[in-house]
């Protein structure tokens, strides 16, 4: 015992892992990891959340020319309860934000998210009052697929990156990587500062910039316009 505690590299915990270890990879967990990750990455069931033209490319990716079935994704899961990957394809307005968030919350762990296209990733050209500036303010995103819209090859490449990510996952670290507080529902994932940073060089709304003296516009504030 005295000898073990004197060993370099942490003493007891490094050696006494046994079969399942105490948070560190062992022979058995690494073999189970391989098996589980192999099964998971080859049977991903996507939840298609298509809102715009990206969805057309997504359909093409699922159709026979590009054939995502080759990667074990032949079943589009239209119920979030049986889905593994959320593919958000297209622009998301603020009115749709709670719907997207609820679908994400309904998906069981483990789950991944692909943000497909410029609009879903950053708001795209729609830097306007009604549009979510990147769905990563609402749900955690694993892979962003750029393009307007991306080619089906782009989506396939993004999903293969998801597969690569699954390959690197481990049972011993999986849940700490994907911890989500279930009490945090219907709340932005990103903090105010992150949202402000994500919304680009112009930062914030015109009103805030105007109040800060950053821009000058002819727009006037009329309080009666705020009638809901």
């Amino acid at each position, binding site marked *: 015992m005295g000898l073990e505690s004197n060993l370099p590299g942490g003493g007891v915990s490094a050696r006494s892992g046994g079969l399942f270890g105490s948070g560190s990879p062992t022979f058995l967990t690494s073999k189970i990891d391989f098996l589980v990750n192999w099964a998971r990455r080859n049977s991903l069931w996507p939840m298609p959340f298509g809102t715009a033209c990206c969805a057309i490319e997504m359909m093409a990716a699922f159709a026979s020319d590009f054939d995502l079935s080759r990667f074990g994704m032949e079943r589009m899961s239209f119920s979030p309860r049986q889905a593994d990957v959320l593919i958000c394809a297209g622009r998301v307005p*603020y*009115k749709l*934000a*709670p*719907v997207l*968030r*609820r679908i994400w919350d309904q998906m069981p762990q483990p789950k991944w998210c692909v943000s497909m296209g410029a609009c879903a990733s950053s708001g795209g050209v729609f*830097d*306007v*009052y*009604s549009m*979510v*500036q990147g769905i990563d*303010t*609402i749900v955690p995103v694993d892979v962003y697929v750029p393009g307007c819209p991306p080619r089906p090859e782009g989506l396939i490449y993004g999903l293969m990156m998801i597969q690569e990510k699954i390959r690197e996952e481990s049972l011993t670290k999986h849940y700490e990587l994907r911890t989500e507080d279930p009490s945090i529902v*219907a*709340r*932005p994932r*990103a*903090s*105010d500062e992150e*949202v*402000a940073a*994500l*919304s680009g060089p*112009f930062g*914030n*709304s*015109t*009103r*805030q910039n*105007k109040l800060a003296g950053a821009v000058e*516009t*002819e*727009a*006037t*504030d*009329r309080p009666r*316009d*705020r*009638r*809901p």
Partner: protein
Amino acid sequence: MTDKPTSGLGAVDEGPVSSDANSPQGAGAPANPDDHPSVAALMERFGEAVLHHEVTSGDQHVVHIDPARNREILGWLRDDPEQRFNHLADVTGVDFGGGQPLQVVYQIWSIPYRRGLRVKCLLELDSLEIDSVAPLWNGANWLEREVYDLFGVTFRGHPDLRRILMPHDYAEGHPLRKDFPLRGRFSRAEQTRRALNQDVERFYIPEERAIGREPQDVTLPTGSESDEGSASDG
């Protein structure tokens, strides 16, 4: 019958025209009422209530009418046997900015006579109220809700005047007004927070929400009522 801006490629050389140049009255060429039978009849029937008549885009006749009498005049256009504008193609709003009056535009079409007409009502910004035409054309219901949502025009007598495109609790105003900032009045973080706190069930009207909540009274056919031949001898 020609438009003031040159049509075709000539307009490209002139460059963009600022919206303020299009004053609510006088954007098109002044026209002869006799070119359009409905306009002539309208002027004869209502006289002073027809404020202005012009032609744009070649043959599109535009009539400005008194906003206080819009339902009466549009109802006459719909019901008069010589007009019969029984198809309301669109109701929309236009805000030219610069404190100019906001326009409510009715695009109507007479199916029997194959005749179109554009009717405009100019509303001063401090009194954005007008009679609803939903009692005349049912199709005006959602169109007027859209104009209310995006421009803030209140339609008197509308059966269900709620927001239709923006969230029900949208508090930043009416987005298609010229004085509305492009990115909204709140910060992005506040907009995201408000969006995620929406009650999505409010997207539905109360009658829709009641579906599935209240127990449904389903009476299955009893054996005696059903066909004897099929319900026997398992």
